[in-house]
């Protein structure tokens, strides 16, 4: 269920290297929702039936849990939308020339873009999204191709770590748009520059995350493999990489998130002609603020989809695998 995912993300970020149990305390063995009241009621029943053993099953319901989680997430969204509406009212009460778009206008416009095939500056919203995602995927693939091997090297060899960590950390400090002059010098205006900027930012994030994941592998696992006669390559590929895989996926998620953020900014300034960032830029130039807000909503939705559903799912899978194929 998609609305279960945010709970996992919160855990994963708080303790990226602890074993995280996706099962929450109020789930019984069948994965059904139970609370203290259900427990007390069942205990009363068991006591009065007189057949109470050391343990007993507590029946619960699946829909209650899903309803509870959905209600909480909707409540969060509702608070956001109410604050937004209040802000719009306040801003528009002063008689400004430009209307501050409220949530309902924005949702209406978004609806038109998404389902009524309304054109956004020459392309449908899906064409813009696909163009952005294509750039993202190309840049992200390149970033992984550099970041994971480089991070692994840094993590494995102490001396390489000492040599490499300072330049990598320095490069990571450079905000995406500050790469613009470099990008323009190397690739000129256009697609390649946007891809370069995204690559430059996310590859460093992935490198650092991968290196620290490898360095966090407990010594005792490495020593256990070495005493059995494992070669350096075996230790690397069959101990370090599997044990660090969840951290590496987590690094990729962080890399993806920063890639997505810098993608929009890059599209806004390097003149790509198509893409969601380009659309935001156009709406601003044409003072179409409702359109701009709709674009921002699209950015949020696509980013969320990528992070939570795609990479979040893979990360959970890896964690379960490391924990020993549970569930």
């Amino acid at each position, binding site marked *: 269920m998609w609305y279960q995912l945010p709970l996992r993300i919160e855990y994963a970020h708080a303790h990226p290297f602890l*074993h995280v149990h996706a099962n929450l305390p109020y789930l019984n063995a069948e994965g059904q929702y139970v609370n203290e009241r259900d427990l007390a009621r069942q205990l009363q029943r068991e006591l009065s039936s007189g057949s109470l053993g050391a343990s007993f099953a507590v029946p619960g319901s699946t829909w209650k849990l899903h309803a509870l989680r959905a209600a909480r997430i909707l409540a969060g969204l509702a608070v956001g939308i109410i604050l937004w509406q209040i802000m719009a009212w306040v801003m528009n009460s002063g008689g400004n020339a430009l209307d501050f778009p409220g949530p309902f206008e924005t949702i209406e416009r978004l609806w038109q873009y998404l389902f009524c095939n309304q054109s956004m500056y020459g392309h449908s919203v899906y064409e813009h999204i696909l163009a952005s995602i294509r750039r993202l995927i190309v840049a992200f693939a390149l970033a992984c191709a550099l970041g994971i091997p480089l991070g692994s090297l840094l993590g494995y060899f102490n001396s390489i770590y000492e040599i490499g960590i300072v330049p990598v950390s320095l490069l990571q400090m450079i905000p995406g748009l500050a790469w613009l002059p470099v990008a323009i010098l190397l690739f000129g205006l256009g697609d390649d520059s946007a891809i370069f900027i995204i690559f430059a930012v996310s590859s460093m994030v992935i490198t650092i995350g991968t290196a620290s994941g490898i360095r966090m592998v*407990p010594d*005792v*696992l490495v*020593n*256990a*493999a*070495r*005493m*059995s*006669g*494992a*070669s350096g390559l*075996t230790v690397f590929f*069959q*101990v370090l990489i*599997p*044990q660090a895989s969840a951290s590496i996926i987590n690094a990729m998620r962080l890399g993806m998130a920063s890639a997505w953020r810098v993608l929009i900014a890059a599209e806004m300034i390097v003149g790509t002609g198509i893409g969601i960032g380009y659309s935001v830029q156009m709406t601003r130039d044409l003072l179409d603020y409702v359109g701009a807000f709709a674009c921002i909503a699209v950015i949020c939705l696509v980013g969320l989809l990528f992070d939570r559903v795609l990479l979040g799912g893979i990360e959970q899978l890896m964690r379960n*695998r*490391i*924990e*020993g*194929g*549970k569930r």
Partner: protein
Amino acid sequence: MSLIEFDKVSKAFFTDGKRKQARLALREMSLSIEEGEFVSIVGPSGCGKTVSLSMMAGFLSPTLGEVRFKGRPITAPGPERGVVFQQFSLMPWLNVGQNVAFAVKNAQRKLHKGTDRAQIAERVRYSLETVGLTHVAESYPNTLSGGMQQRVAIARLLAMDSDVFLMDEPFSALDEQTRQHLDKSLFDLWKASGKTIVFVTHNISEAVLMSSRILLLSPSPARVCGEWTIPADIDRDLESPHLHSIVQEIRAQLAFNSRTIATGIEE
């Protein structure tokens, strides 16, 4: 020729990152361990028991002197010198059978013995049977108790067919009952297999119950300062006068050593 030999081994560590100070952990330690012995190394905590075991395993090299295995200096870890660690050391993403098989494969490859699948499977089966864990071969380490995990770690060495089992307080993280049970099984295993075992512990009765020989290390910097041999045919019962007196002797020696050190500091 002894199986393991320490020839005036000294080991010093830098005490800080600046590397201006060093601390001596072992001081010209000499000892030898013969094939088929069960040698326990006891001593006050922090005295260098684990350091000396790590040198036998090949994780650490001596600063001065030489550590030899079958007459050759030890330079790296190897499957002929298997280790059971104090911490749980199974790969969490492999099940019990795969964990043992992983070690066997590494060992076979290292010793250029060829990695025949059926042969590996047979070794895994045999070793898990020996430690009585055939029924959990498909289970993952996180579903096992601490005692079971350490038994798998022992099975790993059996499957690798290590010449010597180096055991670094393997049962100290376990509860007392489990520990006594595992002590008994290890002792039986040693009797049956004739392997050489080096067993680091701070528990003197544990050492006396199992060993054929006990080495007492002095407070840091360590050297061997006492040695007791226990006859093979003796009844392993702490109530028996002979074992009881050995325990008392070791305790007295330990207490004496720490007092000498204490007065040394006062002066």
